């Protein structure tokens, strides 16, 4: 693995879109008997990661592969997650799907798994530089999409604010940067605040109240995840500014959809965790079956607003179909 | 006398692996003041703690007015009419004097709010007979130890108790304070209260008690009528042997070891000068609050002097902290043993070695063989009992803790020993041993300073006595001139000799910030 360049999942050239998998590599080949997959993600306290697990499970059920899905006790529990991953290696699963807390905390797994000849797929979020396989979306793109919405729908520009996730976490850094860079390039928007929300509703609520109080002419918020965005929505409502201030989140959890439908949250960037889980497991099993996949399999994202919420929130297959259409349309 | 007011019947108390009391029985009549005597560890406090509901007896029962009472906890004991003054001060420094006195059973308004004023009024009433200068509204922590002990006594007087147990109530009091306590106790007796009085000061017991029960190793040796007993006979019952009545012996030389000039502290000590010779035992007497403790702390480096000069063998020394003092050969045996003396969880050996780690660990690692040898030697020398060097020090009696602290300085090669109330709370047998030890040390060429509120102790030990008043040396008395009257005459401010009132203001101003380090 040392000869591999450190992975940058956002820019890696050796990539394929998820919608191309079947076209390029055919149907999923027959798997060796008793194939089992082990997966570990960040935390189950966030719906995003639970949905990812659902995706693993639903795809596993479909192809008859049992999947063990575990998560650390809290976001930031790096060593706990490492312990879990090491346990999975020890137990002899045929493939591992890992969503690391940080870029490096699961590094030792790469070597242990290699020694045990078990492929490892890095699924979303933090990126292990040595990862040979990555399935997920482009983190930066989350922020970029929201910025583009503002540029398109608020042509006059104005003041916007960012509420960030935990300081120093990859996804937070990338999303914030994508938004900030894209929106300031236009010259019309001013990012008047970019403050920590620590993935926490209450902190974000307080931060938003303070920002609104100082900038009553603010036109929008971008939050690094949906929980924080929903806190911000309450602060905006409390300030009586719901008609003037657009609020965007990230992740596309069900509460965010509900809030969007209710006309409160303006939008979110859904990265379709269930589908991502399905695609990730599919890719992993293709590796088990001996196929050579590109290093990065890109999963879809979409900016959800009231206009298109229904299109992306039906049953799993319907969403899959819609996304395939999007992909075909080059979106 | 019909039914005795208080009866102990076959009380036994077994702590895990220790039998503290075996089949203790005796009774105290209404209006009787009953002494309870015995060496350290004889079981006096344990018995009284059973009486006050802190411990439960393993066997036996307590009867009050002929009826057995269940003393399951302090509240039950109080309800049964027992009030107790504990040997260790049981107080909360941040609460006021009155709050402390009413702690656990505050006076309330409407059952909801504490009636502060009322509490303070009643507290002041109870304090009036003992020390009217104590303000019930001040935080208890601002009082001196002696005043705190008076508060503790006054607290026991608040209840109209049928039985009052006093466990060494005068350990920090001066004789004149004892006299007022004696009056108060006599008043209690007149009201028909049964008083159990524990003290190591035999003269007090002979002064106020009619009868006494003597205990040794957890059993009652006998209950005696004090009017028909000599002190000597009582002592031999207590210790189980004859105590030789030793006389003072002088070992003083002309060689000046320690020379103090113009020593002063920021708070209390003013312009103290004296010399201490090789082989000398220098007594320091004075009223409570006269600055004796603080003087010793300055010499031991525990507090910093604001001015003055200290020389040892003619060379000026710096005393910025206790380490400087120890390096210069000075060691302090402090007044409050529990707070300043011992590290309770550690063994006798560890406590002993604490001040001389450098000696035991010449190459950074403790030489345990050597430590053990020295500990055995020094503890034999001070006659530690029981001779268990690895046992945590907190399980030893006060006297033996004191011996271990003395051993600490012997192990450290200290040449100047400062004793602050060396026999406070220590029984008569151990006391004699400590006196003997002090004299031996002097004979070997150590220089010793003894601060004591017990004048007989000072007179027994000292080659020379400094009398302190208001933070400075008021007089220096040679052995030939020593008497209790002579010391008292210098200790009490001239203008106000007739009353204790006069001593108060000086005590009140005494502001010692013991902060150090």
């Amino acid at each position, binding site marked *: 693995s040392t000869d591999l360049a450190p992975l940058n999942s956002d820019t890696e050239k050796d990539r394929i879109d998820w919608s191309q998998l079947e076209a390029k590599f055919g149907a999923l080949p027959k798997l060796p008997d008793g194939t089992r997959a082990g997966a570990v993600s960040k935390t189950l306290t966030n719906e995003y990661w639970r949905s990812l697990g659902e995706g693993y499970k639903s795809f596993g059920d479909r192809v008859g592969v049992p999947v063990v899905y575990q998560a650390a006790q809290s976001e930031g529990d790096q060593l706990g997650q490492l312990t879990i991953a090491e346990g999975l290696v020890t137990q002899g699963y045929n493939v591992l799907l890992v969503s690391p807390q940080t870029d490096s905390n699961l590094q030792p797994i790469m070597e242990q798994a290699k020694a045990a000849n078990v492929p490892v797929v890095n699924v979303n979020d933090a990126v292990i530089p040595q990862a040979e396989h990555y399935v997920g979306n482009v983190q930066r793109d989350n922020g970029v999409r929201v910025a583009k919405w503002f540029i398109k729908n608020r042509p006059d520009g104005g003041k916007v604010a960012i509420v960030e996730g935990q300081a120093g976490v990859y996804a937070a850094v990338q999303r914030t940067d994508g938004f900030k860079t894209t929106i300031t390039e236009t010259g019309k928007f001013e990012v008047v605040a970019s403050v920590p929300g620590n993935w926490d509703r209450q902190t974000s609520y*307080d931060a938003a109240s303070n920002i609104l109080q100082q900038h009553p002419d603010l036109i929008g918020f971008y939050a690094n995840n949906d929980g924080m965005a929903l806190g911000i929505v309450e602060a905006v409502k409390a300030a009586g500014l719901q008609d003037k201030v657009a609020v965007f989140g990230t992740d596309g959890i069900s509460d965010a959809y509900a809030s969007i439908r209710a006309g409160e949250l303006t939008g979110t960037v859904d990265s379709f965790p269930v589908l991502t889980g399905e695609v990730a497991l599919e890719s992993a099993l293709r590796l088990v079956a001996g196929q050579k996949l590109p290093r990065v399999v890109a999963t879809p994202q979409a900016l959800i607003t009231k206009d298109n919420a229904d299109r992306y929130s039906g049953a799993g297959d319907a969403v899959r179909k819609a996304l395939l259409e999007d992909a075909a349309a080059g979106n | 006398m019909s039914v005795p007011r208080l009866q102990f019947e076959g009380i036994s108390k077994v702590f895990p692996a220790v039998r503290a009391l075996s089949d203790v029985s005796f009774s105290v009549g209404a209006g009787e003041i009953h002494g309870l005597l015995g060496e350290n560890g004889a079981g006096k406090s344990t018995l009284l703690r059973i009486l006050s509901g802190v411990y439960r007896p393993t066997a036996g029962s307590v009867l009050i007015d002929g009826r057995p009472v269940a003393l399951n906890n302090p509240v039950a004991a109080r309800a049964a009419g027992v009030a107790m003054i504990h040997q260790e001060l049981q107080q909360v420094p941040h609460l006021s004097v009155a709050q402390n006195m009413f702690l656990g059973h505050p006076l309330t308004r409407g059952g909801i709010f*504490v009636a502060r004023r009322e509490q303070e009024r009643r507290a002041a009433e109870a304090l009036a007979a003992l020390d009217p200068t104590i303000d019930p509204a*001040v935080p208890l922590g601002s009082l001196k130890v002696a005043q705190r002990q008076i508060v503790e006594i006054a607290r026991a007087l608040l209840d109209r108790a049928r039985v009052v147990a006093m466990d060494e109530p005068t350990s920090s009091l001066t004789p004149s304070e004892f006299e007022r306590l004696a009056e108060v106790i006599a008043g209690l007796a007149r009201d028909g209260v049964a008083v159990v009085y524990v003290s190591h000061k035999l003269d007090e017991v002979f002064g106020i008690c009619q009868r006494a029960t003597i205990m040794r190793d957890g059993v009652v040796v006998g209950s005696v009528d004090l009017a028909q007993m000599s002190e000597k006979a009582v002592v031999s019952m207590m210790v189980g042997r004859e105590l030789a009545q030793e006389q003072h012996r002088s070992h003083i030389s002309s060689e000046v070891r320690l020379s103090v000039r113009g020593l002063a502290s920021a708070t209390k000590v003013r312009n103290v000068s004296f010399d201490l010779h090789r082989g000398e035992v220098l007594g320091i007497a004075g009223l409570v609050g006269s600055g004796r403790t603080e003087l010793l702390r300055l010499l031991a480096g525990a507090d910093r002097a604001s001015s003055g000069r200290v020389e040892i063998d003619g060379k000026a020394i710096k005393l910025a902290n206790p380490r400087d003092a120890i390096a210069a050969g000075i060691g302090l045996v402090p007044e409050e043993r529990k707070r300043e003396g011992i590290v309770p969880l550690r063994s006798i050996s560890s406590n002993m070695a604490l001040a001389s780690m450098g000696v035991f660990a010449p190459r950074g690692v403790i030489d345990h063989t050597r430590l053990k040898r020295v500990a055995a030697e020094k503890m034999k020398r001070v006659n530690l009992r029981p001779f268990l060097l690895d046992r945590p020090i907190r399980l030893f009696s006060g006297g033996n803790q004191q011996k271990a602290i003395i051993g600490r300085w012997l192990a450290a090669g200290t040449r100047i020993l400062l004793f602050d109330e060396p026999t406070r709370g220590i029984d008569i047998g151990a006391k004699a041993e400590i006196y003997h030890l002090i004299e031996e040390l002097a004979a070997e060429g150590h220089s010793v300073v003894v601060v004591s509120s017990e004048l007989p102790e000072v007179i027994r030990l000292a080659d020379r006595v400094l009398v302190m008043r208001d933070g400075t040396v008021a007089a220096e008395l040679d052995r030939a001139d020593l008497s209790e009257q002579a010391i008292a005459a210098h200790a009490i401010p001239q203008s106000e000799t007739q009353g204790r009132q006069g001593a108060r203001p000086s005590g009140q101003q005494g502001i010692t910030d013991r902060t150090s380090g």
Partner: protein
Amino acid sequence: MTDVTEHTAARPRAEFLHRFSLRDAGTLIGLVVILAVFGALVPGFFAERNLINILQQSSINACLALGMTLVIISGGIDLSVGPTAALSAVISASMLVAGVPFPLAIAAGFAIGLVCGLLNGVLVAYVGLQPFIVTLGTLSTYRALALIYTGGNPVLGLPAGFRAIFNGSLFGLPLAVIIVAVVALIAWIILKKTPFGEYLLAVGGNEEAAYIAGVPIARTKIAAYMISGLLAALAAQILIGRLGAAEPILGNLWELDAIAAAAIGGASLMGGKGSVVGTILGAVILGTMRNGLTLMNVQSFYQLLATGLIILAAMLIDRVTRGRG
């Protein structure tokens, strides 16, 4: 080194009062300095609306810190306040969503807080375990229960009527602020005027002495933890009223803020000492810091730095104004 460095003054009574307010005055001065600094740096900092914001944002921490203060005075510590609040929040919220009448659902939330506190208290007082470890254990346990109960999902869709209870205003002040002010007043009365307050101080100041004096040690400690649990539950109600949702991960690291507020306000973790007024000021100091730094748009790393430094600075100022504690 000594725990007793009080002075006996000529007029001890006045001095006693003085001593108490002196410590709080130190905290107040700290707050004034911080206000002045932000006032100078941030335009509109002193706008009424912003000051109200600060109070509102401090109210939850103040609520918890009051309970924490009582526990700390009793010689304990309660690390489990955040998870207690979370458990109370998700249970109240799911009852509300299920259509249970408000008073019942709120009462259930309070009951949860009391039960959590009771368990802490019993383990500390009757079983005799160290408070830090007990509440470290229940910190995980209560959090796990909240997560298991909800499957990790937030409980959404709280009825508007419920939210109005905690979201309203009275005399231009948010109700949450008024509620916490009333709680503070009650806590002050408890500490200063009632036997229970005295017992708390006594148990924390010298447990053995308190026992011998007949203070009901176990009940006093348990009551302190139960109050802390109850106030955590109250904080939870206020918060879910404000956010409209109850999350099982709510209250993460609340304990540290609450302890910081109490300590800045003069509580000693050794027990026996603490001030309601000081704690409130401590909470407002922390709230002001957050508010001011956000308004100054200080980057998150530097906000963290400022938070750390302000805690150290507050304790240093405390140390200087008060002498060695």
